[in-house]
């Protein structure tokens, strides 16, 4: 007897359903590390070849790889970890993704259901541990729920304000002997979860009226413009309005840095002109920025004359720190698009003469500082000039994955990003150790792209074990280590606030990075002065198939400037060691 195809039901084990669900979700790579509670799942993984798995050397690296993949591609990254230490090792990476609103699905094994709560071997309440740092988490209580729960996990992770989602699966739910009818839902609905898909038209109209009337406007572009894939419309809107644009640390590349209208970053290490323009603005149009404390300085002194139009997909980001005059809840892309079409239909246009004055003022500010730094006559390298050189050899077109510290700020300031999703850094959590695995995650998916990890000798040592993963999978990233022999950012604060008492910010006995790289089969080049810099970079980037570790010795006494004076307004800045606004 012949059965019509739709009558054939597939019977799969829980473990097989996990893998099939990921296949049906279109997942290409999983980053992970096996262990007792996920053995059934890893066995199901072994028996197929659609979804590939990258075996990292530490679970934290798996989460950062998945995270960076998501940042570059816009699609959620997927992680497998085992129960207990596997899951807790992933927590830093989950928190990193959470703070920057990055979609990620983490599947964690759990001890068998009947052992939960008994302090079983490798039992951790990862739902409890991860709760404050996930968008949501799910526990599988019944194996037949696996496909639908995984669908929900992807749906929640990638819609609205994106974020990491953990799915905790007890081992018995994945037993190979218990089979269930498999059916991956095409879509899911959750009555309690309805993210906004467009902004309120009345509010957008009101915003547009204010924008047209504005005399000293600034557009503030944040991570929501990058994550929301809105850079193109936002750029068009800014250019049609002739408004200056400042991009936050998370928004770099959301507006082309080489364009005249770009002012640089706002905030603690923002550019002089961006902070001055914001301070004196009469209108701030924020597109997916969340006014965090590193941007606003003292909130009560923040931009005293500005009215604020705040566009954000997450209502709780609006008026959290800075009161919005016009709150607009919705995706930046659809809101900016609607603004553009209003503008096209509108009879009024931006105030040309006011804007001309405003630009005149901004150009004066630009001349005052303009991102200058002192160079040494003796050839000792400045970190800023290294970043500028990297920009040059990569034609400004690389994916730059950064660690955390001074090098991160120099990269943000001096690698001028013209495209979105190219600047990949841990902005919210500031996770040292992020940069290298992040670069690996990007390189895996964009093998033909130039992928650079900008790091410090401190940060790099937080995940250097991944040099091994790079050998296994052939991930020829270029590591630019700005080696100042110290925890530079800590040291800078100690210089500025603790009379240069360098408490625990000096690193003795750094490894011989050349030998270290060689031990894993990689290349390394040490650069000690200006004359060596460009030739070494050119040589490194010419080695297309090689991971190259660039150990670049830079001035340990350099500070990141501008730097806002704490507890003051946006315009209060140190511009160099001796010059204050």
């Amino acid at each position, binding site marked *: 007897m012949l059965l019509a195809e739709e009558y054939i039901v597939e019977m799969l084990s829980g473990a097989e359903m996990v893998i099939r669900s990921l296949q049906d979700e279109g997942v290409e790579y999983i980053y992970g590390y096996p262990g007792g509670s996920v053995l059934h799942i890893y066995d199901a993984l072994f028996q197929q070849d659609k979804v590939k798995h990258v075996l990292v050397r530490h679970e934290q690296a798996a989460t950062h790889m998945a995270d960076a993949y998501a940042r570059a591609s816009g699609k959620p990254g997927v992680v497998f970890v085992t129960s207990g230490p596997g899951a807790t090792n992933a927590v830093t990476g989950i928190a990193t993704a959470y703070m920057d609103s990055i979609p990620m699905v983490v599947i964690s094994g759990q001890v068998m259901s009947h052992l939960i709560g008994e302090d079983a071997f490798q039992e951790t309440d990862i739902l409890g541990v991860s709760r404050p740092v996930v968008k949501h988490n799910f526990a599988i209580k019944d194996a037949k729920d696996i496909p639908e729960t995984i669908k929900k996990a992807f749906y929640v992770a990638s819609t609205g304000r994106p974020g990491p989602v953990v799915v905790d699966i007890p081992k018995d739910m994945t037993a190979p002997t218990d089979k269930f009818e498999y059916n991956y839902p095409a879509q899911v609905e959750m*009555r309690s979860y309805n993210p906004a898909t467009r902004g309120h038209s009345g509010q957008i109209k009101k915003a547009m009226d204010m924008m047209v009337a504005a005399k000293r406007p600034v557009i503030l572009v944040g991570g929501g413009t990058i994550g929301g894939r809105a850079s193109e419309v936002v750029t068009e809107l800014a250019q049609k309005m002739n408004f200056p644009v400042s991009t936050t640390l998370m928004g770099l590349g959301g507006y082309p840095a080489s364009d005249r209208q770009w002012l640089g970053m706002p905030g603690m290490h923002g550019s002089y002109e961006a902070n001055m323009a914001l301070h004196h603005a009469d209108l701030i149009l924020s597109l997916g920025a969340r006014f965090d404390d590193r941007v606003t300085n003292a909130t009560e002194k923040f931009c005293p004359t500005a009215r604020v139009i705040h566009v954000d997909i997450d209502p709780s980001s609006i008026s959290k720190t800075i009161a919005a005059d016009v709150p607009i809840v919705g995706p930046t892309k659809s809101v900016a698009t609607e603004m553009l079409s209003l503008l096209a239909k509108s009879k009024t246009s931006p105030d040309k003469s006011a804007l001309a004055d405003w630009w005149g003022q901004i150009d004066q500010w630009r001349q005052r500082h303009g991102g200058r730094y002192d160079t040494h006559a003796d050839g000792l390298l400045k970190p800023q000039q290294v970043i500028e050189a990297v920009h040059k050899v990569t034609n400004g077109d690389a994916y730059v994955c950064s660690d955390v510290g001074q090098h991160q700020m120099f990269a943000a300031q001096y690698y001028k990003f013209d495209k979105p999703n190219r600047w990949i850094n841990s902005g919210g959590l500031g996770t040292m150790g992020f940069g290298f695995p992040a670069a690996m995650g990007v390189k895996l998916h964009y093998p033909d792209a130039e992928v650079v990890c900008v790091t410090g000798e401190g940060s790099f040592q937080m995940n250097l074990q991944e040099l091994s993963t790079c050998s296994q999978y052939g991930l020829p990233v270029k590591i630019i280590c700005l080696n100042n022999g110290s925890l530079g950012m800590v040291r800078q604060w100690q210089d500025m606030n603790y009379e240069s008492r360098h408490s625990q910010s000096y690193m003795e006995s750094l490894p011989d990075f050349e030998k270290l790289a060689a031990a894993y089969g990689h290349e390394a080049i040490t650069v000690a002065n200006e004359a060596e810099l460009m030739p070494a970079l050119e040589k490194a980037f010419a080695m297309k198939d090689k991971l190259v570790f660039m150990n670049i010795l830079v001035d340990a006494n350099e500070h990141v400037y501008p730097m806002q004076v704490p507890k003051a307004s946006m315009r209060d800045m140190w511009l160099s060691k001796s010059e204050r606004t």
Partner: protein
Amino acid sequence: MRHIIAVLMENEAGALSRVVGLFSQRNFNIETLNVAPTEDPTLSRLTVTTTGNDRVIEQITKQLNKLIEVVKLVDLTDGDHIEREMMLIKLKAAGQHRDEIKRTVDIFRGQIVDVTSSVYTVQLTGDQPKLDAFINAIGESYVLETVRSGVSGIARGEKVLSI
């Protein structure tokens, strides 16, 4: 200012801990909290009383709404509403005070729900000030044990919180 927020959420394991976790994680106050399933067994209703200025209360409601399992919520303090709390209280009731305590219970429209020769257990319902006033009237030295349900609240009139 004090606010009473009523929340409908999915009646699922873990949902309550998310709400409680949110309050401590974000440094919000909880004064009272009560929760029970509704007539629709897939939903729980939670009432939380909290204090904060307008900005804090706005954040509380927004952050609660953001929890995936929260279906709907209302700040009852925004409109006319009824609030009630139930208290069970064990009182020393011996000798000459026994009648006095009984009279006070009657005045407050409480009920004596359990009796021994030396103890009354009283059930009393009302808003928080009424329950506090009762304890004052009795005198703390007669109180052996109290248990309070936390505030429940509902809007007056036609308004309903449902999905």
